[in-house]
């Protein structure tokens, strides 16, 4: 069923069931699930502590709450409908309301998004070059890294760096690690058949341990004194990973290109009942229905440089096709899109194929037949689902984190610029203030500053930013 019909049905149902709802308030339950909830507090009133269940985010350094409003844009919520001319109200870290008649408290920071589009921040399901890899993502994160600016300028607000999902909170160390210990690498390589056999044996061993452990628990609960806890000393290293895998605490992750590899992996996941994420999945389109039924999630890149050549002798379909994404979507396979080079560094990646081109990659999927809503979803909500952080990021819903980007056109179009990026309720990127790009297609061309044409700029010459006051002689 087409994704865009569902919210309409829900809206219709709500309107029929709740006649008392005033139509002035946005009735969409996705955007505003608690219809009876009070409006945001009146201007200038101190915010009383909320009762029960409402997550406002961590305590802010200041005593007051931080309010932010993105006003008047076309809001693409991804999980719901498109709301034209709507406002998003953000309190501290979370979205408080989305709608057309949201009242904004006094003192809130306003992003004037009229004429612009508002999207959730892009989630890159794999990345490199943004630091914070390795054991300690909290301490290794560079909040002023130049790569962060590049990523935010292209709309990316959440990345997965190796083993942790990290938000690009430029300028702050608050709340940047979303989730750690994401995946377990499942070693399955077609060039190493023994590895497959050993993997199955290991998984079988761990599964046997789990069975024994369950038996032991059962016996203990029934009061059997002689119940013996199974030996767990050997559960170290990769076995510890498999244990988490079989307990479904972590997802498995592997890379598979050809049809047989993908089927083997999917079968493995089905046999041992664990969640699996397959990367690359070049020939997944040939088995889209089977994959859809298996529940495997896929990370795919739409344009692939090194394509496995189509094998003319094969009876089955082989090779790469740009319709991969759309066929997978039709088969019901959840997938996320990343460019083939997941490195953020444009110096050594090929321009146009690195992580900054993630939105265009989704655009190429549309060229292959994928619907635009699904393409947008594949760079926002689906990667968040794969990483397991979809409770907080990936779409614009009340209660989720305020990771928002405002663009001056269709996000999937190559000519679009991100004008603002908001992460955790703070504006972390403003194109008009970023010296790298503010001179390109200025937001307000009639008041754009004149381009300074000499280098190097003298102290006090360049407008905006720090260190720009005119030279003062003498003491303060």
């Amino acid at each position, binding site marked *: 069923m087409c994704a865009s019909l569902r919210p309409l049905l829900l809206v219709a149902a709500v309107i029929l069931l709740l006649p008392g709802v005033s139509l002035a308030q946005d009735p969409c339950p996705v955007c505003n699930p608690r219809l009876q909830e009070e409006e945001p507090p009146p201007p200038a009133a101190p915010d009383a502590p909320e009762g029960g269940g409402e997550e406002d985010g961590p305590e802010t350094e200041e005593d007051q709450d931080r309010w932010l409003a993105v006003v008047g844009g076309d809001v693409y919520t991804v999980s719901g409908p498109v709301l034209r001319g709507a406002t998003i109200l953000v309190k501290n870290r979370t979205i408080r309301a989305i709608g057309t008649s949201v009242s904004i408290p006094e003192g809130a920071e306003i992003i004037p998004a009229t004429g612009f589009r508002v999207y959730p921040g892009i989630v890159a399901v794999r990345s490199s070059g943004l*630091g914070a890899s*390795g054991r*300690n993502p909290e*301490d*290794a*994160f*560079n*909040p*002023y*890294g*130049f790569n962060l600016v590049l990523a935010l300028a292209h709309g990316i607000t959440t990345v997965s760096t190796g083993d942790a999902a990290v938000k690009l909170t430029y*300028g*702050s*160390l608050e709340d940047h690690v979303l989730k750690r210990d994401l995946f377990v690498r499942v070693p399955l390589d077609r060039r190493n058949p023994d590895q497959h056999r050993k993997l199955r044996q290991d998984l079988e061993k761990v599964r046997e341990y789990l069975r024994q452990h369950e038996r032991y628990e059962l016996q203990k609960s029934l009061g059997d004194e002689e119940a013996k806890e199974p030996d767990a000393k050997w559960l170290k290293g990769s076995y510890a990973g498999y244990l988490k895998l079989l307990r479904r605490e972590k997802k498995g992750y592997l890379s598979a290109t050809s049809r047989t590899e993908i089927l083997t992996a999917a079968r493995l996941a089905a046999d041992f009942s664990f969640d699996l994420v397959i990367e690359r999945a070049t020939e997944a389109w040939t088995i889209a229905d089977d994959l859809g039924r298996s529940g495997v999630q896929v990370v795919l890149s739409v344009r692939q440089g090194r394509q496995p050549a189509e094998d003319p002798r094969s009876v089955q379909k082989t090779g790469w096709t740009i319709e991969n994404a759309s066929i997978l979507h039709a088969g019901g396979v959840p997938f996320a899109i990343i460019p083939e080079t997941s490195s953020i560094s444009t110096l050594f990646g090929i321009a146009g194929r690195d992580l900054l081109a993630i939105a265009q990659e989704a655009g190429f999927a549309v060229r292959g037949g994928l619907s635009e809503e699904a393409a947008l979803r594949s760079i926002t909500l689906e990667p968040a689902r794969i990483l397991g952080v979809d409770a907080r990021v990936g779409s614009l819903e009340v209660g989720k984190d305020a990771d928002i980007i405002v663009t001056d056109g269709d996000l999937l179009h190559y000519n679009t610029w991100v004008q603002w990026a908001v992460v955790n309720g703070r504006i972390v990127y403003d194109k008009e203030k970023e*010296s*790298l790009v503010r001179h390109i297609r200025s937001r307000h061309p009639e008041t754009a500053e004149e381009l300074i044409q000499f*280098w*190097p*700029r*003298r*102290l*006090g010459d*360049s407008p905006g*930013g*720090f*260190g*720009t*006051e005119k*030279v*003062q*002689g*003498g*003491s*303060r």
Partner: protein
Amino acid sequence: MFLLAGGAFGSRPLSAVEDDDRFVVIHAGRILTVSGEEIEDGTIVLRNGAIDAVGKKVEIPWGAEIIDARGEVVMPGLIDPRSRFSLPRYTRGGVHCDLSVVGELYPQDHDFRSVLEAGFTTLGLYPDGAGFPGQAVAVRPVNGGVEAMKPEEGRYVRVTLLNPSSDKKAFMDAFKRAKQEIDKVDKARKAWEEKKKKEAEEAQKKAEEEKKKQGEKPEDKPAPGPEPPPPPKPDPGPDPRRGGAPGNGTEPKPEEKKPEEKKGEAKKPDVFVPPPIDPAYQPLVDLIQKKEGVRLLVEIQNASGYLHYLDAIERIELDVATEFYVENRPVPANFGGGGIDLGEVVDKIGEKDPLVVLNAYVNNRFVTQTRFNLPAELVKAGCRIAFTPLFDGGETHADLRMQVATLVKSGLGRKEALEALTLRGAEALGLESTLGTIEKDRRADLLFLSHDPFDPRARVTRVMIAGETVSRPVGVQ
């Protein structure tokens, strides 16, 4: 007693004079006191190496040595708080706050003439390495061996936090360990006090039982048996081991001495002897307990380092003021890469009014070609700054004055620039009450220049340490 007839001068009366006081009088064309106003045609009176009086009209004692500097500018001697001058490089890691740079000073190895001729009267030599390599110490840059350098004066504990992904954990762990040492002593003290209380109670019980045996009524007040234990002695703290004596890198092993061992000596009063604190962590312990005279200098290299530093001290609940060193290496104006991004957090740094030691260059804003005067911006944000040369080669000390002159032309205030060369360096080393300015009771470390210090024509004509002229560069008219 020297009495002056008439008393027409009298803006500053002389203090009581001993017969063997040594007086030096300096007539200067301009005196930059740094602590107050600049004085034209003033006079400085030194007594026994300390400044006794400064002013336009000052009483001049009989028999004083007169120095005629009426065409010259006199200012406090320059202070470099962070230098490895004439010391070799090495790597060191881990926590060694007890090791001092004094252990690296060999008597005949150091020729400080170039430093003196550049006008520096104090050098803060620091230990090389990363992590917590040890303590830096202020020395006088005079030839004549370690005794002449007098390395027992100012000091700070040096910490590097250059790469947060590796250094931050080490930083937090070191302070956690210091807190554990404090807890260790507290626990031992509590246990000892518990024991004393128990013993007192037992002794009291015994005394009462004895009284009962002798058929007397047990009295209400306790028998005059055990005296109340003397109050526990304050923690002695292994001061001599903290780096005064030249060590050579070996760490003393912490011995666990139980207070019970002292019981054997029945003659001595029964006092609490705390278990010794690991001397490598002793300065950190002092810092946590907010002892006077302990300073921490944290080296960071970018804005990310500063944010991680803030996060680290919040996580370990450390509430001490620290000084910082930031290397703002110069980037040529037409070079697009590099530069310093500390400008992003300058306001945040300024909130805590710290002392920031840095190099005297105008730099680029990070990955742009916009020029950026970091020292001036730090001052505007409310920090105090001190300058140090970027390298420790021969001529870099001589260049520092002109580098600062460039900064003054680029927006740094003159007053702050002079302070950064003198008083703030003394503050970094904890010597602000003895050095860095020309006012009464400061040590007479003076620098004589032919012109204003920020004038390109200026040459050093005389350098004085503690009232003694230590350098008169040749070739000066």
